[in-house]
């Protein structure tokens, strides 16, 4: 019975491959992802490199400077150095890993929670549904940014605080969509058939229904990823972001005055990379939406 879902996916993939913007977005995301993986594996731009000074502070992009390791050696700085003489390019690249860490953890957790709760809510109905729907409405009726700030405020500054705050807030979006979709699906023939064969409820949920939620999962993974990365910047600006490691948000927040003081490279670098990644993800999301929405496939 799941065959229906598979053929749908194949069709969608074909459509997705034809979308030039989507493929471009995917390519950019893939490059960023490879870089992030490289950093994570310690191939280049390690935390140690990103937090160790290479030369004097505020070397302008393109300028030569004498390195700290060996003062006789003159090196050329591509994107300049920051207040402590650390290489801005290294920091920027390291931050790609940070962005992916936050984006992936938050989007996967949020989507996982949302899908599971959404399925439970819709399939079981009754008081479970009522309770979850109640929580959903409550969370949804306060501006997200307030929740994010409040929760990360309560959890304290740092990676964990950011991730918890964003996850706690983002799961509701996919929850509601999944719930609606499952409501529709559970009345469908193939589910009713499984039920009549006496399949267990969990089996029906995760075996029969869940594969039909692929499009929602893809789209929300992508949406939550972008939102997480963008919100990290705002949290860092408010002093609630990651501490101790470079990230785009921390770089923008700490160097915000440097821009007006003529030291533009750190803020600009972080802003541009953030822009490129978000832009690529936006294009990817659009393409996914177009390709995987069952109403549009065909």
């Amino acid at each position, binding site marked *: 019975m799941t065959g229906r879902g598979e053929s749908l996916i194949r069709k969608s993939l074909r459509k997705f491959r034809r979308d030039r913007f989507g493929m471009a977005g995917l390519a950019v995301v893939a490059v960023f992802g490879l870089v992030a993986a490289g950093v994570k594996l310690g191939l280049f731009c390690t935390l140690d490199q990103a937090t160790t000074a290479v030369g004097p502070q505020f070397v302008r992009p393109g300028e030569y400077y004498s390195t700290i390791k060996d003062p006789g050696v003159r090196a050329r700085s591509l994107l300049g150095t920051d207040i402590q003489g650390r290489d801005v390019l290294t920091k920027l690249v390291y931050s790609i890993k940070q962005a992916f860490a936050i984006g992936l953890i938050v989007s996967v957790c949020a989507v996982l929670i949302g899908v599971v709760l959404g399925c439970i809510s819709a399939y079981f109905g009754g008081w479970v549904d009522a309770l979850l729907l109640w929580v959903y409405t409550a969370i949804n009726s306060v501006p997200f940014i307030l929740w994010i700030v409040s929760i990360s405020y309560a959890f304290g500054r740092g990676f964990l605080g950011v991730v918890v705050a964003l996850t706690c807030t983002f799961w509701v979006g996919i929850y509601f969509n999944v719930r609606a979709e499952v409501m529709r699906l559970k009345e469908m023939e193939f589910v009713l058939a499984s039920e009549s064969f006496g399949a267990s409820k969990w089996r029906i949920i995760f075996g029969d229904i869940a594969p039909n939620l692929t499009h929602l999962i893809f789209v929300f993974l992508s949406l939550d990823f972008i939102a997480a990365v963008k919100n990290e910047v705002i949290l860092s600006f408010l*002093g*609630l972001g990651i501490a101790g490691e470079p990230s785009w948000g921390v770089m923008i927040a*700490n160097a915000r*005055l440097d821009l007006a003081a003529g030291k533009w490279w750190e803020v600009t670098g972080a802003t541009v990379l953030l822009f490129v990644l978000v832009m690529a993800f936006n294009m990817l999301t659009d393409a996914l939406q177009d390709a995987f929405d069952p109403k549009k496939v065909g």
Partner: protein
Amino acid sequence: MKTKTLIVIAAAALAACSKSGGKPGEKVLVYGAVAVSGSADPNMVASVYDADLVGLTYDTLYEYEYLARPFKLKPALAAAMPEVSKDRRTYTIKLKPGIFYPDDACFKETGGKGREFEAKDFVHAMYRKADPKTKSQTWWTIEGLIEGLNGLRTQAAAKPFDYDTVIDDLKALDRHTLQFRLKRPFPQIMWVLAKESMAPHPLECARHYGEDFANHTVGLGPFKLDEWQKNARYTLVRNEKYREDYYPTEGEPADQAAGRLADAGKRIPFADKVVVHEFSQMQPYWLQFRSGKFAFGRVPGEFTEEVFKLKSKEGNKKIWERDAKGERILNPDYAAKYAYYPLFLLDFIYRGFNFEDPIVGGRGKGKKLRQALALAHDIEAENDLFYNGLNVIYAGIVPPGVQGFDPTVKHPYRGPDLERAKKLLAEAGYPEGKGLPELQECGSEEGRTVEQSAFFIKNAERIGVKIRYEAMRFAELSKKLKEKRCQIMGLAWGGDWPDAQNFVQLAYGPNKSPGSNNFNYDVPEVNALYEQALPLPPSKERDVIYQKINAIILEDQPFHGAMARTRDYLIPPGTLNFKPEEMLSNHAKYIRLAEWGDAK
């Protein structure tokens, strides 16, 4: 069509704004503050920004001489300097008669007309500090100084504070005479009396407004609070009932040269209205100042290189171009618009260790560890990286600028000296950091502070010591400090008054957490020496004792440091009589703008 109308409206609105200010002929002084004030209640002064507001709207018994350096006090509400008894414990202060409060609805007996200021107002102001119900932010300034006051506070824990009680050691002898008796001689009491938070105020008004007294001023200061957009801007207007007050006639030689004595003997304040813009972001503050909106401004560290002429750079060390007097020189486009005044703050920026901690504390292994860390760190480089090399680095606890500071003292553990650091670390039992658990440092979450700690942590790593930084909000940080839950702490102490005692007390055992001795440093020799020096006024005798304390502290290294900041003020030529100093907060009554014309 519509867009055109919109553009016209917008342009008109913009034009209207550019000429905003007061009525024609009104003398309006406008400047910015880099943080916001919370309360205008003298009892609630919690930051220098609160003090700035209270200092302009309330008056104290004594005030700083505006131009005198080193600092000197003169009578303000008091008629003369106090009469002090032989045992240096009883102070009798005559007050100026005929000073009236501004009219305010809270004076119910007189139908809203301001009554005369009396000695009991000071007593009541102190009672308010002692009353635990008011949650005074400034009780600490007089705590333990006057026995009867502490007694009242203890009693008030059980029953409501009785403001009509008369105690023997703080009372009004008559309407214009005040007397108090100190528990033990404490010459610094005069500085305490000049603090903004010690301003007398009418009890009936504090009661009338209740907690909202924070937003209404009924003070004897040169100005009254007129409007306050909380966290954004406050407007003060001249207090017509302000006492007779004149511009100082004496100052330093530099004041004469800078024209700050031109208005000598003139009646102050000069301004009719003072508008203070409050900022919580530096960018708008700086841009507003640069666009000419403020009567003076201070240079955020990020812009120092843009403002001052740089001769050369050796690595991170900036060599500033200096004139014959050794002052830095402004860059041409700044020199055309501003004069510059470097202010050396009475500051104590340090990185402390919890002396009670089993690892970093104590005088055994912990002492060697602290010394090793001091040797691993490079405070000169920290100064160059984060303060443009403009901070003053000094050894010990007494900062430059107060009597008792000795510039010849050498820091015995001044880094970087990695060889010695490693040796000491091995002696402490942690060769190359082996066996030493990861240490924890607490500090503010503010971006630059975090960066600065990262630099310290990197330096410690060079000898194998691992430190984790915990960034936290101020509330959380103070809680952790009070509960002694920080191993290492990066903090700053701004002097309350310009006397070495205010700094040395930070190392006095009984002041440890929750007191101001955040490193919980408690060593019998130091405690004994401190107590011995306590009754002494600033003198050679006291200096010798303080230097003994300093030497012990330097050996024990309960903290690394220290640095005092330099603040650069820029003053446009149209702003006259401005002499920056952050110990006092009533500059606005002395400042005159050239555009107002000559003073009467």
